[in-house]
C-alpha cells in the first residue's frame, strides 16, 4: 500500500514537472508573440481552419498547441485565453471536439509506429475524422444559434458554468 502511494506521489511530481517544462515556455513564447504582434503571421497558414469551422482566428493558436503537444497543454492555453475573455462558447465547443479526437499527433503516432503500426493510416484517419466531425458540428451549430440560446437564458450559462451542453 505504501509502495503504491509512493509510486503515485512520484508519478504526480514527474507529471506536474513535465507539464511545467512545456507549459511555461509555451506561455512565455505566446506572450512575446502577442505583445510583438507576430502571432497572426504564424497562425496565418492555418487560418483555413477558422474559415472552415467559422470560428475566430484567436482560436487557432490554442488548437495548434493541442494538436502538436497534447490535450492537456491545448486545454491549458484555451482556459488561459478564456480568462482573458476572448473565446466564444461555440469556438470552445468545436475546439474541444476537434482536440478530443485529434491531439498530440506526433507523440501518439510515433509510439505506435515504434511497435510496427502503419503511421500514415493512424495519422490520416485521425486528422480526417477530426476535420469531418468538427465540420459537421460546425454546420449544425451556427453562431446565430448560440446568440439565440444566450437570449433565452440570459448569460448563456447552465449550472456548470458553461453553455456548451445545450448546443448538441
Amino acid at each position, binding site marked *: 500500500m505504501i509502495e503504491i502511494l509512493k509510486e503515485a506521489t512520484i508519478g504526480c511530481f514527474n507529471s*506536474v514537472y513535465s507539464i511545467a517544462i512545456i507549459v511555461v515556455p509555451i506561455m512565455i513564447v505566446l506572450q512575446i508573440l502577442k505583445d510583438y504582434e507576430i502571432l497572426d503571421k504564424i497562425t496565418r497558414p492555418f487560418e483555413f481552419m477558422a474559415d472552415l469551422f467559422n470560428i475566430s482566428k484567436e482560436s487557432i493558436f490554442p488548437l495548434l498547441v493541442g494538436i502538436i503537444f497534447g490535450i492537456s497543454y491545448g486545454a491549458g492555453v484555451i482556459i488561459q485565453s478564456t480568462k482573458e475573455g476572448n473565446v466564444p462558447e461555440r469556438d470552445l465547443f468545436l475546439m474541444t471536439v476537434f482536440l478530443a479526437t485529434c491531439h498530440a499527433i506526433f507523440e501518439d503516432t510515433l509510439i505506435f509506429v515504434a511497435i510496427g503500426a502503419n503511421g500514415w493510416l493512424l495519422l490520416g484517419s485521425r486528422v480526417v475524422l477530426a476535420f469531418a466531425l468538427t465540420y459537421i458540428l460546425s454546420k449544425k451549430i451556427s453562431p446565430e444559434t448560440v446568440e439565440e440560446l444566450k437570449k433565452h437564458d440570459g448569460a448563456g450559462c447552465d449550472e456548470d458554468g458553461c453553455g456548451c451542453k445545450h448546443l448538441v
Partner: protein
Amino acid sequence: MLTKSVKEGFIKGLETTWMLARVLIPVYFIVTFLQHTPVIDWIAIAFRPLMAFFNLPGEAAIVLVIGNLLNLYAAIGAIKALSLSYAEITIIAVMLSFSHSLLVETTITKKLGLSAIKIIAIRVGLAIFTGIIMGRVGAFI
C-alpha cells in the same frame, strides 16, 4: 517590453501548470491504484467476446482496456507481451489513437465545458467505428 512579456508569460505558465496539476493529481492517484488491482483483468475478460467485431483475438481486450483506462505507454507494454500480427497491431493502434487515457483526458476536457459522457461517447464511438472498418479491411494492410 521583452522582460515584461517574459515575466507575464512565466506567471501565466505557472498559473496554467497549477490549474492542470490540481485537476490531474487526484486522477493520477486513481490510475496508479487501478494498476495494482485485478479490476483491469476483470473488465478485459468481460470484453473478450467483443473483440471478434474488430477481427482481433480475445486476448487483445486487455490492451484496449489498459490503453483506455491507464495510458498509451501501458498499452504498448501489453501489446509487446502478446504476439499480434502487423495488421492486428494497426487495428489496435487506430482504435487506441481515438480513445485512450480516458480518466485523465476526460477530466481535462471537462474543464473546457463539455460533459464527460459526450466526450467519451465521441471518442469511444470513433474507436469502435474505425475498429470495425479496419477489422474488415485489415487483411489488406
